[in-house]
């Protein structure tokens, strides 16, 4: 290290105890004493909580009194407090990028137990930072402008609520939904726990509001196919699938459906999960939004063979809304931020054959039963089994595809309450004996435990035990013609056989089937379970690591409607705040070409995924557009003549870190 290179360097080193979090494992005093011996270090201190106000003031004071011009803070992860200490430096008049953090908590004291080794490691890391900070340069934060428009992907309750919230703030929102209608899973539910208000009654007004809102562009039957750009300026391409109906002309009179050459519905109705049938031309459900029919090209004779009477066309001859020639189209939009609310799928219980789903007709999923108990469902609200009987005994099995190492490890969070609700509704509809087979009853939420108590007192049987199998094998005359649940009832202490007319599987919630592709397209991450990863599990549960992209609802993990709405509102608030601020501050970690050093070899040009590097023909040099550069440093590593640098991650800085951690090797 030469003093000539970077002026008179005066380094202050600050070792945080983090209460006992660090100090219990790392000998912070020894680290501070050691740091004091390193070249360039003027002051080395340890302090109980560096991030506290007095801790920050300590740094500010040293900057002012001791002319400290480089700051090394050994504390927690930079993701937590880098901005804190940069702020402290800035307040004392020092360029914030003269601060370097050393992670001796997450990467040291919290993962090691041996005090000596942890202390040695802390010293090594501190030394590396001291050597690194030597080369730091003053930098400016970059600002990028924010397009005020917001894209919301997914039209379930999360997307609907987020879109409405943003739209109400006066910003333009694009709401893109894959299906022919918005509403998502919530539209399929009958009642909502714990208040038992009807899902449709509370959802459909919001759906209509979306349709009617002047600030919302609603694109159903559409999918995002590509995303480019970054915070403030995302370029998104949306594919609009042909529904063979001109949305602007269809008024939802549904006469075409009556007129269809199929006199009877013949195809599985997706909305009712195949419990009823629909025609090739159909509307997903009566309150579908937009209220526009759609033609299923797989089922429609005209679209399949071109040889149909096309009686639907006749029915719509005046308006001419039916258009068999419709093709998919692509729209490109510019938005400043994106809210992803792509929802979930339910666990396919065929994966647990012991429960006989798909084998025994009277084994249902909770979602199917939602349709069964719904007054506008396939049975007009009558709970009858597939063989047409009113069940006298119904068993609801919890944790099907949840809390199970063989399927999904996580608790799906809503199944307990859903099951309590369905138990109540089934009992109300049929008077049947209802058995809930549970592992734990999880009723955490406002009014939830109270609802559990209500259902308990309605005489629903709570059998604590995970059903081992559902079988139709009768061991006793009383079991003939029934399904039998075999279970250890750990409450009574018996292994029991309980004959049931209907079995309901409370299926767990899983990431959407294409969650991985969506995650990649938007450049966000997934947690281990495959749900989208939030920036911070406590403090930033809607932002992602990608600035300007937020997640809401069940794409982030199982949650109930109130939590979904809260998260959607939060995501919307973040998007609104971003748009209202008008700009976003970026880390100055961009790469730049030192023009006189560049040989114009063009090696770097194709490496940038953001097209930030161009080759300037006039100068025969590469040039990096700082606005487009995201600061990954890939071109820096690749530049064969070392002519590209990266702010905050200069070669010298990293080399000195390497040297620092290995000084005694």
């Amino acid at each position, binding site marked *: 290290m030469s003093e000539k290179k970077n002026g008179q360097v005066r380094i202050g080193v600050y070792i945080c105890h983090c209460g006992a979090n660090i100090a219990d494992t790392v000998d912070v005093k020894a680290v501070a004493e*050691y740091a004091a*011996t*390193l*070249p360039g270090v003027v002051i080395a201190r340890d302090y109980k909580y560096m991030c506290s106000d007095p801790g920050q003031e300590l740094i500010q004071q040293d900057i002012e009194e001791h002319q400290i011009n480089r700051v090394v803070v050994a504390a927690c*992860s*930079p*993701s937590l407090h880098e901005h804190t200490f940069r702020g402290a430096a800035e307040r004392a008049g020092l360029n914030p990028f003269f601060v370097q953090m050393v*992670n001796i*908590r*997450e*990467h*040291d004291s*919290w*993962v*090691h*137990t*041996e005090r000596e*080794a*942890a202390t*040695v*490691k802390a*010293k*090594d*890391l501190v030394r*590396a930072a001291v050597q690194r900070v030597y080369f730091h340069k003053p930098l400016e934060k970059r600002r990028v402008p924010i397009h005020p428009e917001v894209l919301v992907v997914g039209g379930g309750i999360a997307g609907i609520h987020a879109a409405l919230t943003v739209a109400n703030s006066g910003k333009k929102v694009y709401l893109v939904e894959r299906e022919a209608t918005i509403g998502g899973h919530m539209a399929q539910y009958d009642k909502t726990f714990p208040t038992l208000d009807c899902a449709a009654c509370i959802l459909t007004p919001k759906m209509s509001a979306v349709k009617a809102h002047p600030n919302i562009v609603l694109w159903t039957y559409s999918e995002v196919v590509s995303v480019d750009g970054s915070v403030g300026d995302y370029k998104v391409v949306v594919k609009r699938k042909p529904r063979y109906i001109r949305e602007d002309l269809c008024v939802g009179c549904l006469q075409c459906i009556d007129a269809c050459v199929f006199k009877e519905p013949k195809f599985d109705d997706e909305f009712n999960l195949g419990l009823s049938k629909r025609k090739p031309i159909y509307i997903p459900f009566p309150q579908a939004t937009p209220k526009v029919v759609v033609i299923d090209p797989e089922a429609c004779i005209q679209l399949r063979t071109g040889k149909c009477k096309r009686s639907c066309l006749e029915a719509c001859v005046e308006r001419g809304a039916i258009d068999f020639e419709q093709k998919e189209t692509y729209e490109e939009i510019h938005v400043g931020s994106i809210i992803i609310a792509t929802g979930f799928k339910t666990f396919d219980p065929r994966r647990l054959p012991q429960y006989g789903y798909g084998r025994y007709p009277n084994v249902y999923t909770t979602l199917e039963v939602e349709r069964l108990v719904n007054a506008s469902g396939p049975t007009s609200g009558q709970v009858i089994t597939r063989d047409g009987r009113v069940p006298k005994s119904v068993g609801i099995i919890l944790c099907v595809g949840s809390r199970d190492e063989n399927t999904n490890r996580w608790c799906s969070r809503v199944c307990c309450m859903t099951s309590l609700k369905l138990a109540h509704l089934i009992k109300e509809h049929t008077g049947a004996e209802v058995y809930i087979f549970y592992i734990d009853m999880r009723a955490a939420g406002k009014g939830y435990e109270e609802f559990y108590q209500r259902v308990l007192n309605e005489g629903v049987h709570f059998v604590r035990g995970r059903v081992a199998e559902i079988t139709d094998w009768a061991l006793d005359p009383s079991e003939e013609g029934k399904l039998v649940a075999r279970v250890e009832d750990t409450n009574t202490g018996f292994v029991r056989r309980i004959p049931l007319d209907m079995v309901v599987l409370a299926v767990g919630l899983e990431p959407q089937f294409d969650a991985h592709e969506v*995650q*990649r397209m938007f*450049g966000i*991450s*997934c*947690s*281990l379970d495959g749900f989208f*990863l939030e920036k911070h599990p406590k403090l930033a549960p809607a932002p992602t*690591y*990608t600035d300007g992209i937020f997640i809401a609802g069940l794409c982030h993990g199982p949650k109930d409607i109130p939590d979904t709405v809260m998260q959607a509102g939060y995501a919307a608030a973040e998007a609104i705040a971003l748009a209202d601020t008008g700009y976003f501050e970026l880390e100055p*970690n961009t790469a730049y070409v030192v023009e006189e050093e560049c040989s114009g070899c063009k090696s770097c040009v194709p*490496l940038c*995924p*953001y097209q930030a590097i161009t080759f300037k023909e006039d100068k025969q040099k590469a040039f990096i557009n700082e606005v487009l550069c*995201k*600061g*990954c*440093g*890939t071109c*820096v*590593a*690749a530049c064969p003549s070392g002519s590209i640098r*990266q702010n905050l*991650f200069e*070669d010298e800085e*990293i*080399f000195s*870190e*390497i*040297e620092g*951690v*290995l*000084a*005694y*090797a």
Partner: protein
Amino acid sequence: MEEKPVTDKLVTGADWEPLIVAFFCNWCTYTAADLAGVSRMGYDPNVRVIRVMCSGRVDPQFVLDAFAHGADGVLIGGCHPGDCHYVEGNYKTLRRYHLLRRVLADLGIEPERLRLEWIAASEGEKVAKTINEMVEQVRALGPLRLSRRFREWDAELASLEAEVKRGEEVAAHV
């Protein structure tokens, strides 16, 4: 630097402990290592992590420099293919890694001393597992510690220098 070496124990003889330099990308592996910390997943203290924004920033020079300065192993952690925060920086890392391993093999450094792992932000456990595994692997290979080798080479010259000096002194007296 002339201070008393604090890592003596790590460096010398029977007490040799593998020393591994890790380059972790900010978005996935570094975050995963933070998660490992938050979840208190213990692992071997033999690793020194250097944060880069993307594994694509890892210049092969850094790897060689780490070996040259005494690392017994180098670990690079990046996002899973397809999950790169910078779209495809990790693919560049992967390609360099393959070529670099060939060079290292030709220069007598066991390929196991350089490891590239894809560790997503949520895979705290994998950080701990990878580090422990690698420490064991490198332990089995034994010390590399090129820094010591370089010191020996320097000593070779130093002894000559001394000899030359002595020779001249003798000549001067004659």
